[in-house]
């Protein structure tokens, strides 16, 4: 009898267990549909005008990524003069001194890769603008106008990147006679597959035509637009027209060049600045001024200095060592990484004009052998040695879910 009672009450318990479990499990397929908590995915971003502005902002910021970045690119472009006094003395620097770059040069490779990275972001931004324009309900006229301006800005930026690419890597300078010679691959949309990434090198003629057409489109989109106040560094109509004039000049299309340049001179309201201003204007001061049509904006006095960095990587290393991450596949367990974490020096801080260099952790980087950054990675791989796939040695972004 007793057994029977137990049976019944615990059959209820069994049921409770089942229900509890099912609640936990939820239902089938949607259970597996999760989104990445550490990134905005293409499913949920960009969906608002503000989101688009964030993308556009990134494009402006990226103008420093490629040519006007920190030292390596500038070293190739300007030669060693600007940087000779800063005491760089690695292989690429020496190659620069001897004008002896080759395809193995990291600096040269970076110029190619970073400009195309910028092009890729511009393509993604243009696609996002177009998608928003066609799918957003009840788009007001003002917003439609805003989208046009944004598209114009991005087209200018894309043309700008191609301009530098073709100047660096085109087979020769462009004249009509050289139209058939090799330019650079023209990439207008973000690839969706490995096959789509295989793009042939366009001819010089095609490349310059593409640059010109982007700028002409920007000219239409930004017609009459100039920016003021908190937006004064955006691409405006005079930047487009000025750049078009420059492009035509490069292409030896003197008539067109003359039309645009004259219009800029006559109608933009810009004029040359005195030497006192000019002398200082490339040190991030006096910007923008009555002479400049377009500036890559550096902030000489960053609002936030970064005395130390806490990076995704450094933190995730801690997380890895926590024993928490261990419930996730492929991550090292706590103790395994504890050693590595303890051995891991502080992460090198991004350098460049916009970053205050951190006080040198003398202890950490006292060793004279090799550039500090590479040794840091060696160490990071040491951590990854617990499970090497977890932190990719070549990645600065840390484990996949960061």
């Amino acid at each position: 009898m007793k057994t029977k009672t137990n049976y019944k009450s615990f059959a209820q318990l069994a049921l409770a267990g089942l229900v509890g479990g099912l609640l936990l499990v939820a239902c089938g397929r949607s259970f597996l549909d999760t989104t990445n908590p550490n990134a905005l995915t293409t499913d949920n971003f960009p969906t608002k005008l503000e989101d688009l502005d964030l993308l556009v902002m990134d494009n402006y910021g990226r103008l420093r990524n490629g040519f006007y970045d920190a030292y390596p690119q500038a070293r190739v472009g300007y030669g060693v003069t600007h940087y000779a006094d800063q005491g760089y003395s690695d292989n690429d620097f020496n190659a620069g001194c001897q004008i002896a770059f080759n395809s193995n040069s990291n600096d040269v490779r970076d110029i190619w890769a970073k400009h195309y990275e910028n092009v890729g972001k511009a393509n993604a931004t243009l696609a996002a603008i177009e998608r928003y324009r066609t799918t957003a309900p009840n788009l007001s006229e003002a917003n439609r106008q805003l989208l046009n301006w944004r598209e114009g800005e991005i087209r200018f930026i894309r043309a700008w990147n191609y301009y530098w690419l073709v100047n660096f890597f085109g087979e020769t300078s462009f004249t009509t006679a050289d139209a058939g010679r090799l330019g650079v691959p023209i990439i207008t949309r973000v690839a969706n597959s490995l096959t789509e990434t295989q793009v042939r090198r366009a001819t010089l003629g095609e490349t310059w035509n593409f640059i010109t057409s982007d700028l002409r489109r920007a000219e239409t989109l930004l017609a009459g637009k100039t920016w003021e106040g908190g937006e004064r560094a955006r691409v405006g109509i005079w930047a487009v027209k000025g750049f078009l004039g420059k492009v035509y000049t490069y292409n030896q299309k003197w008539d067109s060049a003359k039309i645009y340049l004259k219009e800029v001179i006559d109608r933009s309201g810009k004029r040359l600045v005195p030497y006192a201003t000019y002398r200082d204007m490339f040190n991030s001061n006096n910007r923008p001024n009555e002479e400049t049509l377009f500036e890559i904006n550096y902030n000489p006095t960053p609002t936030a200095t970064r005395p130390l960095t806490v990076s995704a990587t450094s933190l995730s290393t801690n997380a890895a060592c926590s024993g928490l991450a261990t419930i996730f596949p492929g991550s090292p367990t706590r103790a395994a990484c504890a050693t590595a974490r303890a051995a891991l020096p502080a992460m090198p801080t991004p350098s460049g004009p916009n970053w205050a260099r951190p006080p040198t952790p003398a202890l950490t980087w006292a060793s004279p052998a090799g550039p500090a950054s590479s040794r840091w990675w060696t160490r990071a791989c040491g951590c990854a040695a617990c499970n090497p796939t977890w932190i990719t040695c070549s990645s600065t972004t840390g484990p996949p879910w960061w």
Partner: protein
Amino acid sequence: MAGSGPIAAQSLAWNGQPQNKLTLREALRQLEKQHRAKFIYETELLDQKIADPGVVKSQQPLEQKLDQLLQPIGLGYKPADGGYYFIFPQKVKQTPKEPKATQETPADPNLGSPVATDPAGTTSLGQEPTRLLTDRTLSGRVTDDTRAGLPGVSILLKGTVRGTTTDVDGRFKLSIPDAGGTLVFSYVGYQTQEVAVTTQSDLNVTLASDIKSLQEVVVVGYGEQKRSDLTGSIASVKSEDIKNLPVRSVTDALQGRVAGVYVTSESGQPGANSNITIRGAGSLGGVSPLYVVDGMPFFGTGFNFNVQDIASIEVIKDASAAAIYGTQASGGVILITTKKGQSGELRVGFNANYGVRNVFNLPEQLGRDEYIRAQIANGRPASAFPNPSALPDTRWLDEIYTQGKEQNYTAYVSGGTAKSSFYLSTNYQRQDGVRINNWLERYTLRLNSEHNLSKRLKIGQTLYGTFTQDAPPIIPNQGPVNFRNSPLVPVYDPTNPLGGWGRDQESQRGNAVGDAYSTYRLNGAYAANLSAYLDWEIIDGLKFRTNLGANIDHFNSYYYEYAFDFGQVQRPQAQTTFGKDFGTARQLLANYTLSYTKKVGDHDFNGLVGYEARRAENSNIGGRSYFALLDRQTNFNLIQNDNLNRPFAGGDNSFRLLSQFARVNYAFKDKYLLQFNIRRDGVSNIFGPNNRFGVFPSVSAGWKITEEAFMKNLEVVSNAKLRVSYGRLGNYQGIGSFLFVGDFRQGFAADLGGGKAGGFGLSNKLPNADIRWESLLTTNVGLDLGFFGNRLTASIDWYNRQTKDMLYAVPLPPSAGLGNEVQYNIGEMRNTGLELALQYEGKTGDFTYSVGVNGAFNRNELISLDPNSTTGQIIDGGLNEVYGNQQPSRSVPGQPLGQFWGYLVDGVYQTADAARNGPTLSFANNERPAAGDLIYRDLNGDGTINDNDKTFIGNPWPRLTYGITLNGGWKGLDLRLFFIGVQGVDVYNPMSAFEHFFFNDYNSTARIFETSGFGGGPITDVPRANIANWGQVSSYHVENGSFLRLKNLQIGYTLPASVISKLKMTSARVFVMTDNLLTFTRYTGIDPETATAGSPRSRGIDNANQRYPLSRLYSLGLNIEF
């Protein structure tokens, strides 16, 4: 036992087969089918016994039938777990009506079978006339190793036919000659034991279970199986083998125990984890096994797991049994069963262990006088050391390393009734590292309980909680075995206001002891692992089981960097930082299985279907700040300059797994076995939308050869079974999350005139919607053999494991603007190998011994990375500062992973003439070598040594890995020796560079004096001390890393019963133990065991100066039980 109903008397003697009778054996066979029961008995017991078919066919419950069938013929039975029934000879129930003669069971001439006695001592054995004169009565109890009474154990006075069997509680009484004699205790499933009896009248005997017994039940995925029915490759490790071992984790406990399980330790740090590779690297990044504790996947079986709670470990190596774990099983499955309570008396026990640790074989860095001599020989002017004897003489490694301590205490209580049982244990462990300022401690609590609510309903629960806290070692850039120091710098300088450390004014070497104390670190972690399960036998043979589990983790870590002044290296107060990190994780799991067992004639089926879901989330956050006002400050608001931003960062993750699985077992005549497993898995954040679910099937078959008639007469061979399996497992380890979807991340910031603002940009990632699991196709052929009544057992396994759809990062053209690479499932790799395990258990007089040997050969081959590319290779591995950024490991199709790649060396130029004609050295300004330099081989003969002359110079994968266990026992003494070994392995030794020359401002060792031409010395076979010899990857630095190590030695003494009974104990053992006592090797680095470790693509690179060294342990231990 219920009273029996009226029964037809059975004739005890069998005179021809009556038509209406069954043999008892056949009757039991039918009952097995009807009731899905399993009977375990000595076959002789049933000889010439018959049964009433009416009883067999009746509709009564099984136990009633057994009562009717067995009791009248002097047999008893005892139910056990899993539908098993032990059948054993028993006294006939005494009823007044029955004549006395029936009390005696018929003697079986083969067994010399027992004469039944009454445990109460009321029956007479008076038929033996001599007894009355010289015999006395001996009574006692026979128990198993859990101290539960063993019924039906046959006890025989050696050399006679006199004997008895134990009753239900394991008690017995037996009359023996006054002079004593030797009693033989035997019982199916247990090791036969002989006990000499002299004058005592009480005798308690514990029979050790025969671990090689074919009736042994092993845990398999979502169930159990008899070892004899296994068709896959499953190895077991018993708690007895690993009990008391000073292991940090389950992984460590497996080292050297199982053929094909290769455990390497890279670090001797307290609590550090070891690498485990089962049957070679299964993927480019290697694969780790799945750990399942009491049926629940368990993550973090590292230091936080109390090894002393383990009852048994099963390691599934092939695809057959592992396929039920599908995509989680790529690295093998390790099934851990924790201890449970047994019905019977309460058992209270205590284990304690205290030991000291010391580092061994560290390089001896130059002390003051040698250092000065070597510096001068190296070209420093003697005037740099004006008054040597006034300088300090600091041996930094002696200052950094100290004697470590290890303490480990466990207390447990277990027990239960027929209805409920429990096991409760708690453990405290503390390890003080051999490195200064490094310790770790851990508290654990476990409660396992199980309750039979009714005959068909059982619930149970496990709870495991831990708290760990540690101060990790603070290790400088140059590693734990730091060469960058000067013996001429004192450790302490009382005049130094910042920390009081000795200052190195000559260069930026710092102060190694000061370094070790330069940061205060404290990590803490709490974890709780809970599970509850319910078993419901719906009808006979149909079982439903649900198991719900939760793991909850929390961690926190804190650091504070002290200000210090080491001379040229300083950290002023303004640059001290502190930071905190917090994180939590939670994992929930539920599984449901339905199993059914059915036997029809010679066909034995059982099947299982199941459904499982798992979800995990974690979240963490951390912050940093400068300008603390207090030492070890934790509050971020109490800082000097609040305008500075205090950065913080954090992240979350989630993981979900949804699965269905099934298994079917089929056996024909218990001779031919067939098993089929299948699992379907979906992994939320890893499998792409085009490949949401993977299906992983396996099939395996077994043939019990010894069951065949033609094998029956072979007395030597007691067991032979052939096993074959083939299956596909999946692997998601090492595959990044959300590779199938593009995303946007924080991008560049810009100031468009209104202040700086951040942007967002598309990630550099080409989404691969096809991303999916890697497939591991494994074939396994195995043979299990037993000889001499399974005293000698052997297992041989051959396998071929093919990894397909292996993830490889295909390079992307940079013009795509999407980064450097995209992951595709296109690579292929193969591991083939042979495994052998032997076990022998023997006994000579009082001396018992066992020998266990296991060995494994594995060959790894990377077949292809990208079939569309001929140039694909992966470069890995890091070397020390002397080597710059060179990476010595190459993973190239056609070769095993991570081969060393460098120059071949043909010795050392002995004369200047020979050197002058040598090829120029591209890495030394194209200069020619000099006498005493390495003879680099100019492979392409172009007169210069450059990258084109590099080739494969070493294989870091061992040809053979093995383990040897030797146990011996003599009376109360026991000796356990455990060896591990690796044979045929190459190690790259970059640390020898430090030992042979002064790199920059580093110290060196006395070996510098052996280098060619050092200080004007002779040309030797050790190359000159320069970077062209010591800082280039060459075969000169590749060494044979083979070794044999006495990993653990234990000598114990079990106190005799006479002593412990006075102390009211039931058992007590004291032991001494040492770890890493002896190593046999030719390797010249610190430690070949850590040297051969590493990740799959960069293993065997012994950056020993970067490794926390292993240490040697001496400890004292105590196991007592009440």
